């Protein structure tokens, strides 16, 4: 990206570091107040961080707490930065790196619409059964499947549906929670 033609003179050091990227899932507990999501998203766009997936919802409604789950990709130094940058925002209570703790469960839900008749319709149903996807809507020429699981399982299911008449997909993005008795 943006490779200069012949090492121009510049006010900045233009060489990028090329450490390998890692993907991390972060759980962020925030005060649910106007603008809080804009702050988080603005941080990512403003500082050039990646968002692979982001989900948010209020989780404790008396205390007005929301939980944001972000899947992001970057070098280890960038991932560390992201966590610190999130943590220093005023309405942020806690940032937990679910990937580092290594004891977390990640799930995503998708609704997958497939249309077709005959053999492909039967095959879609058979595969859905194997993936424990449920039929939540059906017509004589279509199904909507609901499937939950980790992201790669969902992607795999979608890939299998493609030749069988895949119409569209709606995915929630990743939610994550730690194993064991403790909260985050």
């Amino acid at each position, binding site marked *: 990206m943006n490779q200069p033609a012949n090492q121009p003179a510049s006010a900045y050091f233009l060489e990028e570091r090329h450490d390998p990227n890692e993907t991390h899932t972060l759980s962020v507990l925030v005060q649910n107040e106007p*603008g809080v999501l804009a702050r988080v998203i603005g941080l990512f766009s403003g500082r050039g961080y990646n968002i692979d997936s982001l989900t948010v919802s209020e989780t404790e409604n008396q205390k007005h707490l929301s939980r944001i789950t972000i899947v992001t990709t970057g070098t280890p130094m960038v991932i560390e930065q992201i966590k610190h940058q999130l943590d220093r925002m005023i309405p942020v209570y806690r940032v937990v790196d679910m990937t580092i703790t290594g004891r977390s469960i990640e799930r995503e839900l998708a609704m997958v619409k497939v249309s077709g008749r005959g053999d492909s319709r039967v095959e879609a149903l058979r595969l859905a059964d194997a993936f424990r996807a449920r039929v939540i809507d059906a017509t004589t020429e279509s199904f909507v499947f609901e499937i939950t699981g980790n992201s790669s399982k969902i992607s795999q299911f979608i890939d299998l549906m493609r030749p069988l008449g895949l119409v569209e997909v709606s995915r929630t993005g990743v939610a994550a929670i730690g194993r064991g008795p403790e909260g985050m």
Partner: protein
Amino acid sequence: MTDQSNDPNQMTGAAMIVRALIDHGVQHIFGYPGGAVLPIYDEIFQQSEVEHILVRHEQGAGHAAEGYARSTGKPGVVLVTSGPGATNMVTPLTDALMDSIPLVCITGQVPTHLIGNDAFQECDTVGITRPCTKHNWLVRDVNDLAKVLHEAFYVASSGRPGPVVVDVPKDVQFAVGTYHPPRKDDVHVSYTPRVKGDATQIRKAVALLASAKRPVIYSGGGVINSGPEASKLLRELVEVTGFPITSTLMGLGAYPASGKNWLGMLGMHGTYEANMTMHGCDVMLCVGARFDDRITGRTDAFSPGSKKIHIDIDPSSINKNIRVDVPIIGDVGNVLGDLLQVFKAEAKKPDIKTWWQEIATWRARNSLAYKKSNDVILPQYAIQKLFEATRGHDTYITTEVGQHQMWAAQFFGFEEPHRWMTSGGLGTMGYGLPAALGVQVAHPDSLVIDIAGDASVQMTMQEMSTAVQFELPIKIFILNNQYMGMVRQWQQLLHGNRLSHSYSEALPDFVKLADAFGCVGIQAIKPSDLDGALKEMIKVKRPVLFDCRVAALENCFPMIPSGKAHNEMLLPVEATDEATAAAFAGGKALV
């Protein structure tokens, strides 16, 4: 039902704002009126505890508040109207965010029912200022206003200080609600800046320091922000350890320039000895600085052989640009206090005589040397003369941005913290003049000088009118080289001497301009003019525009050239045209 008319805490939103200012000990605010803040101006009119300084452009108010804050350690307060008033604040807010300056900016907003309607002078103030504030608030209910205002002051001045914005719609200013004085629970429970450093980390740091053979202390603006006590402790640490010390642009004055362990500023235009010491050290103690790219040069060649200790109140400063070995998160003053205690109890001064000998050889290169002249004033000479002339005065210096700023940092010796106000992180031309205003408001009897450039000073020149109105005798000392010198220097060094739009064409006559503003104009053309002219500038108790004509084509050295590390600086004596061309040719981009 309580009788509202007798309850002294029942008041309008506008009254609450003034009341909160008083409760936070605010004596001066900088601002500019407009439709969306008229109720607040009405309240200001009816009291005398808070003095309002009327600027000529909102950017001026912002920088004035920054100067006020930087020179006092107290938050600077700004009041501006909605729409253009708020957007004109974007530059000073960003400037304050970059340099960690506590500002509380109150903006008017269109009435709540009009928000989102593209109403007259509406803009999305909290949206626009979100990335350039530490935090901001839109207050939709008058009963939230007191809490938000108190929290705003706390957030601005605690932890790593920074600017905050409180956006108050006009109907909220008119509405009546309940005020309360500042309380603990005004602040988000999620906001808990860490002040005290981790004891284990401090022990590790002491062990490293005690074992050092080639140590250096590298301090920054965080020492100034932490308060005068931090500077005292820093000086004590230097004394107790005997270590050499350098500082960033923002940290000048924390350790005195006359101190025997002082190496001068480091970084792109820092001294040779400071940069070589950084490059060759085996233990680096970074105190309240952030390894900015103007400091490090090429990060992959930055101080390659050292173990690094980093004290900072902001965890996000740690390992951002440079990996460190011993991070200590906490307030600089607090951590230095603990560290000193442990050092004194458990360690003794390491013997670093040979290191000092090596440093002496670097010093001997005299990296700030310049050719003197009897015909033209060299800008470096002008600063030296200014420094001499102000000795014995209670002096504060602000600057604009450019060569003059670097020369000021190199040649003006700062002995105390809070005396040096400059736009470091953002590099905002136009900062220095209004910043000087703010400093002068806070220190009415002191000598406040803006070391300016001919181009920068035109960016906020209108504030001379403010200086005249409020009898603020600021001195604008313009190093007039008739160029955007710093731009010209880069074009010369990096762009084949094609001086694209860097000549200051059609400069105003600054002496006549001073006259037009009703202040004093002084000009110096020859070196022999300087002493007398400076004396006059200092003597006159009115605002001064000083047109100091300096050599037009002088460049700022030493300098770290393109793609080079600290140990490859270009020194002034070596900066012949050929050497410069060679140093920059095909350079891998750094400057």
